[in-house]
């Protein structure tokens, strides 16, 4: 399996090169001139030209890409056009809170999503099922920014229990993670339910019962594991998205994550930051996919990694 992982990781590299090129083109396709945006409103054409030259923006796009890739190969992601701060530093500072928030959101979404899903499947067509599924459908239907605003109004302004945002204490993570996790939890709950309902119809469940195993052992020891494959798939996909940062929720909670950095950078046409962030994001996404694939193997021994 170790071999398989190494093979997959090596396989990522050409993919990233392609991604970097697409991303590069994509960004430069967006109308707007970073030089104009940083020079300020009083700047003259001459000043802007000087900046464009400094940033190599006056060269053909392919040339620019080569310059960028050259830096990349030397481990240099460049510096922000706007602030001259190294991109790695900018992203590094945002990545940790983003990862923490993603993990927290995903963590509780998984725990509660699976719990609700299990309850619903086990009590299929009875009130816990209805309750669980109402929660789940509501979770999917809630606009997360609205949920965030309502929570701020309730828990911060009215009750004063939680800070309105920021990431400087663990309390700041609670509401954003709920706003982010609610929809994912709902999705996981639904997938767990439908998958578990299928599994509970399987013959081996009856075998288990015929051996005197308790419902607890049956559900958690036998049925859940083989029901988790679709759950892992959605969870993986969603986790990938989470790592990329959630623009809307980060805005509402003024959370210093990757999403806001990306939006700010796009608005300022801060190319190096946008490029690095999208590249990193693709990398994370591919990585999450790899982990999901490995989890498949763990969940379903029939899958082997010979390929």
């Amino acid at each position, binding site marked *: 399996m170790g071999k398989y992982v190494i093979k997959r990781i090596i396989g990522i590299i050409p993919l990233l090169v392609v991604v970097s090129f697409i991303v590069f083109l994509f960004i430069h396709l967006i109308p*707007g001139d970073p030089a104009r945006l940083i020079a300020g409103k009083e700047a003259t054409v001459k000043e802007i030209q000087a900046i464009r030259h400094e940033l190599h923006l006056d060269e053909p796009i392919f040339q620019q890409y080569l310059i960028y890739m050259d830096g990349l190969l030397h481990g240099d992601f460049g510096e922000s056009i706007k602030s001259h701060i190294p991109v790695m530093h900018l992203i590094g500072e945002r990545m940790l809170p983003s990862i923490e928030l993603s993990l927290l959101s995903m963590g509780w979404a998984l725990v509660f999503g699976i719990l609700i899903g299990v309850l619903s499947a086990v009590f299929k067509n009875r009130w816990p099922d209805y309750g669980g599924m109402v929660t789940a459908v509501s979770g999917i239907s*809630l*606009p997360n920014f609205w949920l965030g*605003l309502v929570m701020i*109004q309730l828990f911060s302004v009215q009750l004063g229990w939680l800070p309105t945002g920021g990431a400087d204490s663990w309390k700041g993570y609670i509401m954003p993670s709920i706003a982010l996790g609610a929809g994912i939890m709902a999705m996981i709950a639904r*997938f767990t339910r439908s998958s578990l309902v299928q599994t509970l119809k399987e013959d081996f469940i009856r075998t288990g019962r015929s051996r005197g195993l308790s419902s607890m052992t049956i559900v958690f020891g036998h049925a859940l594991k083989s029901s988790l494959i679709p759950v892992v798939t959605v969870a993986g996909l969603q986790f990938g998205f989470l790592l990329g940062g959630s623009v809307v929720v980060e805005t509402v909670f003024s959370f210093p994550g990757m999403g806001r950095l*990306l939006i700010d950078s796009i608005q300022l046409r801060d190319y190096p930051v946008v490029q690095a962030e999208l590249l990193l994001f693709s990398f994370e996404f591919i990585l999450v996919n790899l982990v999901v694939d490995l989890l498949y193997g763990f969940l379903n021994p029939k899958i082997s990694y010979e390929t």
Partner: protein
Amino acid sequence: MAEIVTKTDYMPKSRGKLRSFCAAFIHKKTAVASFFFFCLLIILALIGPSIVPYNPQTPDYNHVLQGPSWLHLAGTDEYGRDVFSRLIVGTRLSLGVGISSVLLGAVAGTILGLISGYFGKWVDKTIMRICDVFFAFPDILLAIGIIAILGPGLQNVVIAVAIFNIPSFARVVRGKTLEVKEMLFIEATRSIGATKSRIIFKHVFPETFSTIIVYLTMNLGTAILAAASLSFLGLGASPSSSDWGAMLSMSRDYMGTAFHLVFFPGLIIFLTVLSLNIMGDGLRDVLDPKSKD
């Protein structure tokens, strides 16, 4: 496209189908309730502007930011306009954006899915790879990128949302096509020498139709949410329109002072999406019991 289903040779079959569908659907009480709620919304979207108590665009600078009362059921906004009337009038915009973007995405996705599923091999591989790439991007980032290129405005929101709807339709329809392709009657039709396009659109497509309907309903909810998020970020509907997302976006500054401005648009979005999701669930149970979420 829908007319293909109602073509004469399918008439008897589809009518029988319709009846049995109604019989089964009627048992899903919540789904039926959601269906009626959605119908109500459609009616509001159609006749809304002529029944509202106030002109949704007329400002009244002497009565700004008033809370809900019998006079103004959902209060007034920062220009003294009646929020209730604006919500009703906004139904057309918000549903319109959702429906048109999903339909656009569904048409494109279905065609891609049919082609991909039917022809297989490299066609399938290419289309699915591209879909994977689009799938891998978070919806909202993709939309922001698209809007950054195309510029803001509702029609571009429709395009952006439609684009990220394409892969999900393509995937589902492809899966269904693969299934249908192996069915006997398709085999039979092929053996009598029907053309490819005829097989795809007259025989395969109708079989995938119920799946598409289910996905359409479910994705409509997501599309409305996405459009609202974009408007919330200021990238969607013109701020002066009564689009629900735009209303939310304009009102969040009043969160602490006039909470009804934030509350009601959010509530109506929530209820709409909720009803669509419940309806979609009901439809899925009836039309396409095999497919999971």
